[in-house]
């Protein structure tokens, strides 16, 4: 166990202590203070990896877990996982600090909150650092579960429960699909390690499971990262407390899918399916999310849709970047790696500004009691710091200088422009779509950013519509967003620090084929000003068109309401959920009738259909009667007697006749035993038959008076068919089996019963000596039956007093 393992497991271990700390100190000190050191420690620990990682080192440690299955807790620290690890712990620490001021000490169940949060943090760390795909899957599911718990933190609210259930269903669905994809990968390569899969992938890219494995893995990534059409869970997850929304649903969990796509780019990238699916789904998500974000009136919903849109942007960049692998790792393909670089850069930027924006929205909610845009306004002078913060975050999101969003947006445009000139993947015809969609989506992004900033802070203050008297937030609540916002600005001015220390090693992890130095040269020269080029004009166009659209927003916003309410992904989801329930209930109600006769029909029908099919398929019928004994006249007479009494049971009008016929049947069988020379059987059969008939008569005597029917058995055609079928099946099988003895019977052994067991009665010798164990259990059955009758009758008589049906 190395330090990195301890660091990953630290949140889990510490989560055990949290309830004790809560119990002991919660009346004095907010529990969050005890939790905050954890992410700080891990963050500082991870910082020391930057130097070795940026110089190209890879740190690989193994902790045996299930070595026989090839499942070990292997950690792989490279540029990609380090970026995520720093984001998770850095923003985690800030979110915990924020939550100390956001979550009230008295009202909230803080121990639950911090346990779930620590579970999530540990799972997320494990996810990004583990190299074993199955361990990755384990952590993946723990993030789903802890996110479920966090969304439903205020479980008294139905909307929280709905949102939690929805996110659970969708992300677990994707997680399971991903597991299937992982299993396929492990089958193809014979290894569970991502790095080894990457090194072996060249041999199996053409394998039959390549595309299914890719699709299933992508399904997992898309559901987790809220890509179209699985994005519907993210807006409903906004019912969680705001620190959670800031942490999970903007900075970390939704990026797990991004991480997965980036991590598996060396495996699948270069395939045409991967390129098209990832980039097109990302593009659709981006424009869809940005379009719907404009519609929202709830600040958190707006941010949720904007998260969806930004995730789509990153996803599409990862798709476009994979084109560089299709060319092989040559000098000219290096120009397409800028898309991957932009993806990783925007990933960091998005985490900073979106985290800060969520915190600002939380502050507004906390201080005014509402998140509704229509009720807010004019907060600029009342909450100046929040206003500044939201301007920084909002402008960064819109892609304006001097904030880091501008840089990644420019790189994004560079990528789509270069991608549109790709000479492969039929991009000559469709390529132009990418810049157009990207530009339109950016315009919408600009519009909702302006709505977010100016609808909230500009305009007229309406104190009468707010639940509280608005004022600036406490300092502790402002520190985390201030830290994040300063990062937004710092990254703009010094992008190359991040570029050299984090982006470059992460690109080396995503595109490991590029070994030459020049491949990622754009990283070193990220700068705000690079002359008058197409990207700059696109940004200027965005500002102009975006401003026009924002100013005329009232005039065209009715376009959102032209589509009917039912025409949305949400209603499809709800209808599917409801439909599957009603259909399943309908099916169950249809066949689970509660009548034993129906169940017997299923059992017997299945029995005869299955066996007859087997007989037919295997051609098992062979009626060989050469070995049969000659039929004597006594046997014929007895069989006729059996048939007559059996028919008597079937066609009797009264129950008494039926019982007598059953008795006759039993006695004839006893006679059959006699002529087949089985005296013990005959004796037993006689006595048992007598007792059974007596018991039948007893039951008959005690039938209730009302509705006593003396009608004959009602005729049903299905019953006739099924009973005939069962009869035919049994007869066929018995005759076939009888004519085809595979080996000699073993009865010759029992013929030595006198020598072996000292008994001349072979049957008895078998019962008590050779196979005495069966007899032992049979008398046990008998005595249990006797005790059963006794207790049934005695307890009924006494009446236990607590009848369950009443």
């Amino acid at each position, binding site marked *: 166990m190395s330090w990195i393992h301890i660091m990953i497991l630290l949140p889990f271990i510490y989560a055990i202590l949290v309830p004790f700390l809560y119990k002991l100190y919660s009346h004095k000190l907010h529990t969050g203070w005890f939790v905050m050191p954890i992410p700080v420690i891990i963050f500082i620990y991870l910082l020391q990896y930057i130097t070795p990682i940026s110089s190209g080192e890879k740190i690989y440690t193994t902790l045996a877990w299930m070595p026989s299955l090839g499942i070990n807790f292997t950690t792989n620290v490279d540029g990609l996982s380090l970026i995520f690890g720093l984001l998770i712990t850095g923003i985690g620490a800030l979110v915990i600090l924020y939550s100390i001021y956001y979550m009230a000490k008295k009202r909230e169940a803080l121990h639950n909150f911090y346990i779930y949060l620590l579970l999530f943090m540990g799972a997320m760390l494990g996810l990004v650092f583990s190299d074993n795909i199955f361990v990755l899957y384990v952590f993946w599911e723990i993030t789903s579960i802890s996110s479920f718990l966090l969304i439903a933190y205020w479980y008294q609210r139905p909307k929280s429960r709905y949102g939690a259930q929805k996110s659970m269903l969708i992300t677990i669905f994707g997680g399971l699909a991903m597991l299937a994809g992982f299993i396929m990968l492990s089958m193809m390569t014979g290894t569970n390690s991502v790095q080894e899969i990457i090194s072996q992938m060249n041999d199996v890219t053409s394998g039959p499971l390549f595309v299914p494995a890719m699709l299933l893995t992508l399904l997992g990534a898309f559901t987790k990262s809220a890509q179209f059409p699985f994005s519907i869970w993210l807006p409903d997850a906004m019912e969680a407390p705001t620190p959670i929304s800031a942490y999970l649903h903007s900075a970390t969990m939704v990026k797990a899918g991004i991480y997965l796509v980036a991590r598996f780019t060396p495996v699948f990238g270069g395939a045409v399916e991967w390129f098209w699916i990832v980039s097109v789904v990302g593009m659709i998500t981006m424009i869809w999310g940005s379009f719907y974000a404009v519609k929202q009136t709830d600040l958190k919903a707006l941010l949720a849709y904007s998260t969806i849109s930004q995730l789509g942007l990153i996803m599409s960049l990862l798709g476009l970047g994979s084109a560089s692998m299709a060319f092989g790792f040559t000098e000219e393909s290096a120009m397409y790696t800028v898309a991957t670089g932009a993806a990783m850069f925007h990933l960091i930027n998005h985490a900073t500004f979106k985290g800060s924006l969520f915190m600002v929205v939380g502050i507004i909610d906390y201080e005014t009691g509402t998140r509704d845009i229509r009720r807010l306004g004019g907060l600029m002078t009342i909450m100046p710091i929040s206003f500044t913060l939201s301007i920084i975050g909002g402008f960064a999101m819109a892609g304006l200088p001097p904030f880091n969003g501008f840089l990644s947006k420019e790189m994004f445009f560079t990528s789509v422009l270069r991608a549109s000139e790709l000479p492969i993947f039929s991009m000559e015809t469709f390529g132009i779509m990418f810049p157009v969609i990207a530009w339109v989506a950016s315009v919408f992004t600009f519009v909702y950013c302006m709505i977010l900033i100016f609808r909230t802070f500009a305009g007229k203050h309406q104190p009468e519509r707010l639940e509280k008297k608005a004022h600036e937030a406490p300092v502790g609540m402002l520190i985390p967003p201030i830290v994040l916002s300063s990062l937004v600005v710092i990254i703009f001015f010094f992008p190359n620090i991040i570029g050299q220390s984090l982006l470059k090693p992460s690109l080396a992890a995503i595109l490991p084929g590029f070994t030459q130095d020049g491949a990622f040269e754009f990283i070193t020269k990220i700068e705000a000003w690079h002359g008058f080029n197409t990207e700059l004009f696109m940004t200027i166009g965005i500002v102009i068109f975006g401003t026009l659209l924002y100013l005329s927003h009232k005039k065209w916003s009715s376009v959102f309401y032209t589509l009917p309410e039912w025409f949305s992904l949400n209603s499809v989801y709800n209808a599917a959920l409801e439909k599957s329930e009603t259909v399943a209930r309908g099916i169950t109600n249809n066949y689970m009738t509660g009548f034993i006769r129906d169940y017997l029909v299923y059992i017997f029908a299945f029995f005869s259909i299955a066996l007859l099919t087997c007989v037919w398929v295997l051609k098992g019928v062979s009626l060989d009667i050469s070995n049969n004994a000659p039929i004597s006249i006594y046997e014929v007479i007895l069989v006729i007697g059996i048939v007559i009494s059996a028919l008597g049971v079937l066609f009797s009008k009264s129950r008494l006749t039926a019982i007598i016929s059953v008795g006759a049947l039993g006695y004839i069988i006893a006679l059959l035993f006699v002529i087949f020379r089985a005296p013990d059987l005959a004796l037993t059969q006689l006595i048992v038959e007598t007792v059974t008939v007596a018991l039948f008569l007893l039951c008959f005597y005690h039938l209730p008076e009302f509705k006593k029917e003396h009608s004959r058995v009602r005729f049903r055609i299905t019953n006739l068919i099924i009973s005939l079928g069962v009869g035919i099946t049994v007869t066929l099988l018995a005759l076939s089996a009888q004519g085809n003895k595979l080996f000699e019977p073993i009865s010759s052994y029992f013929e030595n019963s006198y020598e072996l067991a000292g008994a001349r*009665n072979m049957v008895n010798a078998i019962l008590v000596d050779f196979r005495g164990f069966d007899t032992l259990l049979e008398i046990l059955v008998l005595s249990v039956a006797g005790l059963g009758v*006794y207790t049934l*009758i005695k307890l009924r008589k006494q009446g236990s007093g607590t009848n369950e049906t009443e």
Partner: protein
Amino acid sequence: MRPNDILLHSVTKIATFIILTFSIYLFFAGHHNPGGGFIGGLATASVVVLLFLAFDVETVKKYLPLDFQLMTALGVLLAVLTGVGSFFFDAPFLSQTFDYFELPIFGEVELATAVLFDIGVAMAVIGTAVTIILSISEAD
């Protein structure tokens, strides 16, 4: 008011012994001839049932003070114990053995452990059969 069934009573008194003798015969004959614990047990149970039919249940219980549920349990226990007994001779569970002995009155007699097992079977059968019939007849 019960009818005066003196005939039934008299016949029962004689028949009981005949049936009981027969059932004991069936039991011991089982080793070499048709019969055995199961049939012997059922025949013995039929004696008790006949007594129940002819006389009152209370009367029979007074003169035949047997707990039939206990008898069932003891029967199963005996059968299990004969199985366990074979462990003392380093033999697998339920190994039976037999040998011939010279006894004072009977001359040469074959004694088999299987008979002990069969006694367990017979006791379980008697106990169960009588328990069932008694419970149902007392049900009303």
